[in-house]
């Protein structure tokens, strides 16, 4: 049920994000979702891409620090309170969210949200108990 995410270290300098996206484009990697966490002097770019191995390879070759880690993608109901329901389930199970961001997926009927939990297994169990749909990598790119 895990989806692999590629995280990239970015120095807070002009042109760094442009370089990363350029390398991915050259390697024919399509970006499906992204989020940037920024601090005063560095940023972390998090990407969901259609070919995570190719993406990692091309960035490593470009001497860019990156790593692959697992995230959880869930579908939320497309109505007021849809996201609140999911967060409520997590809160009830006392699960901390490291960060989250949305996937822009025009074709999907339901919005998809990427979650990073410190306790991934427990979070997935809590969500499944609450009847929340968890999206696999295959479903995401299938």
């Amino acid at each position, binding site marked *: 049920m895990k989806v692999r995410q590629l995280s990239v270290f970015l120095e807070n300098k002009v042109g760094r994000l442009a370089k990363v996206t350029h390398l991915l484009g050259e390697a024919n990697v399509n970006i499906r979702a992204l989020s940037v966490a920024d601090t005063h002097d560095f940023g972390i770019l998090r990407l969901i891409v259609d070919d995570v191995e190719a993406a990692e390879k091309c960035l490593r070759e470009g*001497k860019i620090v990156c790593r692959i880690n697992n995230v959880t993608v869930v579908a939320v109901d497309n109505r007021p309170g849809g996201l609140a329901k999911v967060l409520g389930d997590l809160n009830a199970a006392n699960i901390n969210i490291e960060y989250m961001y949305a996937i822009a997926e025009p074709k999907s009927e339901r919005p998809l949200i990427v979650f990073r939990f410190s306790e991934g297994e427990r979070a997935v169990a809590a969500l499944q108990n609450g009847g929340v749909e968890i999206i696999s990598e295959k479903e995401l790119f299938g």
Partner: protein
Amino acid sequence: MDMIADLHLKDFVERRALENLQLERLRETLHRVYQNVPFYRQSFDRAGVKPSDLKSLRDLSKFPFTNKADLRDAYPFGLISTPMRDIVRIHASSGTTGKPTVVCYTRNDLEVWSETVSRVLMMGKVSVDDIVLISYGYGLFTGGLGAHGGAERLGCAVIPMGGGATEKQLMLIKDFNVTGICCTPSFFIHIMEEAEKIGFDLKKTKLRVGFFGAEPWSEEMRSRIETGSGVRAHDIFGLSEIIGPGVSSDCEARCGLHVFEDHFLPEIIDPSSGEVKAPGEEGELVFTTISKTGMPLIRYRTRDLSRLNYDRCDCGRSMVRMDRVRRRSDDMLIIRGVNLYPSQIESVLLSIKGTEPHYQLVVSREKALDDLEVRVEVSPLVFSDEVRVLEALRAEISSKIKQLIGLSAKITLVEPGTIERSIGKAKRVLDLRKLN
């Protein structure tokens, strides 16, 4: 030229015989420079000493020092003590400010040089059967040709590769069955990183020994090199003014670097008073060359801080040992009144798992206060998708620096490769205060 076996024996000569040889050579050198170099004639006269005042080795302390500035003032050939026609090689150090420092060698000096470098290599059990890759820069820098000459004298198969072209270095190591390498420690770490990146296992090659020098490095770096590559790492010390690499080196016992004192006479002085310090006390390292004929230097102040140990080494060599140089008296930064050596920051970084020894110190001054910024490269090993993990790394580095050195430093994480790798020497410090 001496036979190779005889060169090895020179390291084990009995102390009294060594001192007799030193006194004889020193006396000859003092006469030579007083006769032939106007700078030395004037400086001895000013100090009221004559070469004939040297009755014992201790009398050397009556003679004046030579400073780096004297070499610059004598640019380019003011300090040579021989007719120009006897000079067969000229090297020059990369002068970061102003003119380079020039050193001239006679045929005799090149022989001294290749002798001391081959004695270094023998400490790493290198022999005629070895294939040695020279990855120091060639050219005006003494590293390349100096290491080359020693390995060739020993009868090794020498590959004059020079620095850079890391992938090609790896190719040669593998294809040529290289067993020994000479380069800067930071360049070797760069080679190791490159090897890892392309899935090249250095441990599966024949490479077994390395002679690393031309920049200060630490025990932590040594163990990183040895565990990461399986290469036994020797510290080779030298400076172009004295001869180049091959002034001293560590043996298998690893308890200091044996100075080839039958050629280079070391002293330790108090850097402020100039007084000679007792064996075992730390101070500035001073060398007098006693067998060179091209450009002998009398009591040359190196600015390197070290200590001398005259006890017999476990390896049996009689040559005095100097502590490995980790600090230079002029590398020392004074930040908000606190003394800081770049090597201290290196030790902090190496003590934190996963951080790379690639760093740069940036000192600036806003209004009246000095600011220290430490730029540290992020390795794939420590990188995380979570901000708090990287912030925790920053906090850990910062608190260790605070604890050990007593300075608050701003830690900046930068992308790998941002800090310039050196073929010659690493530029560890950017002092922006001078510009104000």
